[in-house]
């Protein structure tokens, strides 16, 4: 008999609550120490909060993207553990609310320390056309942010709802399966216009208001995809360790490992494409972005980023037995998530007023990250208890059991 009903183990609940407490404590201490200070201190606080809010929102959306893409491709391998990305996806609204409130409050309080383009009479003098002025305006920012966050949250909840309804549907009925298929297609359309193109430009790239790179969104998408995959991997391995998810075998873990491996290289490819064109053209207004990161105070994070996100996954995950070893893949998953967290840190911090003073925001960010990790564990674990862990009525259920990677 399959263990279907997930009960949150006491240890997991305690861990998540302790992590949330640490995060909250860090947040309070940070607020008490930094908020009464000058513009620099205040920005240090807000930028670290923003870094974590955006990162954890984007990796949740990345997980939902993985679910939708495999549903659309009719991939059977994900069916055995699709409750995990579904649960992560249906929790997007919490992170969307946090990030949305934060970003909109920056824009509507004219926080020019973070978004320099909010200054009166700001002229992106190197912009090629006037459209950039429309794109970087309060109205468009608010409209587009709210629209995208609502769509992400709604589709995340909807995809899970359809999938759960299918459990009690009549046997061998494929109506809900195709409904899920269509909604996945809809989500991918929204995703292509949001995370894969406009949202990273609007939220992150606009911090360095004069600088722009068309690769930037794809590079951010690569980050969120591979971290989302690693997060799913950690959940799968945790549930397997606790004796759930019997239908998930080494073969499924191997496939997840392959995705982590392949998309780490994909991320590096995009990162390098962005870097090399700027490096080769050597135009001062473009290289200024890399000056502070490569040769300035962020060079440690810059190289650490490459080591954690490229060198570690490619060398550790290359041999086949390593992708089937639960300890090794979970270690690499943690490395990848941390590495991309560092990546987002060095994307966001140098462009704000924080500039070279990264020490306090880094420590604060670590604390807040603990809080977000605790929150994600708490919410997703609770969500997982609400429905059977294995979607048995799915037409691809048999195929997922006999799946061979």
């Amino acid at each position: 008999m399959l263990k279907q009903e997930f009960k949150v183990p006491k240890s997991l609940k305690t861990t998540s609550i302790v992590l949330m407490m640490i995060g909250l404590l860090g947040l309070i201490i940070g607020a008490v120490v930094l908020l009464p200070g000058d513009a620099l201190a205040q920005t240090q606080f807000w930028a670290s909060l923003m870094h974590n809010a955006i990162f954890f929102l984007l990796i949740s959306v990345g997980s939902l993207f993985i679910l939708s893409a495999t549903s659309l491709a009719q991939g059977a391998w994900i069916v055995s553990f699709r409750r995990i990305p579904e649960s992560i996806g249906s929790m997007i609204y919490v992170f969307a609310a946090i990030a949305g409130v934060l970003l909109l409050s920056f824009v509507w309080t004219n926080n020019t320390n973070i978004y320099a383009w909010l200054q009166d009479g700001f002229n992106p003098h190197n912009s090629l056309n006037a459209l950039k002025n429309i794109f970087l305006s309060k109205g468009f920012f608010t409209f587009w942010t709210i629209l995208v966050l609502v769509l992400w949250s709604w589709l995340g909840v909807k995809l899970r709802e359809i999938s759960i309804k299918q459990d009690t549907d009549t046997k061998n009925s494929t109506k809900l399966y195709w409904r899920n298929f269509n909604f996945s297609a809809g989500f991918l359309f929204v995703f292509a216009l949001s995370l894969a193109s406009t949202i990273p430009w609007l939220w992150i790239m606009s911090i360095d208001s004069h600088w722009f790179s068309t690769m930037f969104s794809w590079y951010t998408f690569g980050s969120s995809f591979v971290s989302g995959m690693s997060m799913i991997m950690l959940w799968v391995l945790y549930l397997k360790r606790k004796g759930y998810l019997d239908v998930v075998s080494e073969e499924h873990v191997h496939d997840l490992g392959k995705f982590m491996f392949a998309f780490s290289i994909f991320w590096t490819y995009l990162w390098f494409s962005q870097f090399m064109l700027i490096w080769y053209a050597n135009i001062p207004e473009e290289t200024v972005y890399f000056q502070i990161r490569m040769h300035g105070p962020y060079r440690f994070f810059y190289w650490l980023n490459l080591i954690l996100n490229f060198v570690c996954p490619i060398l550790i995950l290359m041999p086949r037995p390593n992708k089937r070893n639960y300890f090794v893949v979970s270690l690499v998953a943690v490395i990848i998530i941390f590495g991309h967290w560092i990546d987002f840190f060095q994307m966001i911090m140098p462009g704000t007023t924080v500039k070279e003073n990264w020490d306090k925001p880094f420590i604060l960010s670590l604390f807040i990250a603990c809080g977000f990790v605790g929150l994600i564990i708490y919410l997703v674990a609770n969500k997982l208890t609400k429905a059977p862990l294995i979607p048995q009525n799915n037409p691809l259920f048999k195929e997922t059991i006999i799946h061979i990677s």
Partner: protein
Amino acid sequence: MSIKKFAVAVYDDEAVLFPAVKKVRSAGYKIHDVYTPFAVHGLDVALGQKESDLHIAGFIYGITGTCTALGFMGWIFTTDWPQNFGGKPHFPLPAFIPITFELTVLFAAVGMVLTFCYLNQIMPGVKKHIFHPRQTDDKFVMVIEVNDTNEAETLAILQSTGAELTETQVAESDWWYGRFDIKEDYEIQQQLA
């Protein structure tokens, strides 16, 4: 080159083939090879074959490509004929990366294709015995090496696994250079039979 005697069983369906492979292996026979018209998932596991070392060869070819590209370009632009391109250093690593990447892929791909062909004994102009003409069409063929003492009992156990045709063939087990000529192969069998 060595001429050997083989017991050949022809199956109609993979669903029959799998239990047959299991039965023959558990009876203690060593299967020479199984020929299928398409890649049958899980057959390698059922046959108890160990994982191929092809990917290790691929890694070595890839590293060779990386070293060749970096070494050659580095030698040219630092020692043999240094030039100044837009004020870049003489060893501009980022500019070398695309070419290094391409050569890595090229070396790994070509090397692995050739190694694959060698391991599977396929190459243009090279000949190999075909046990059943429809083994690349719609039949599944299992081949076991036999000698005069165990020939009859092997054929009997193959018969019992649901094969639609069982027979003994005397054939060359390795590949050889020559034209792809069934008649010639047939004559060898006639002489040895």
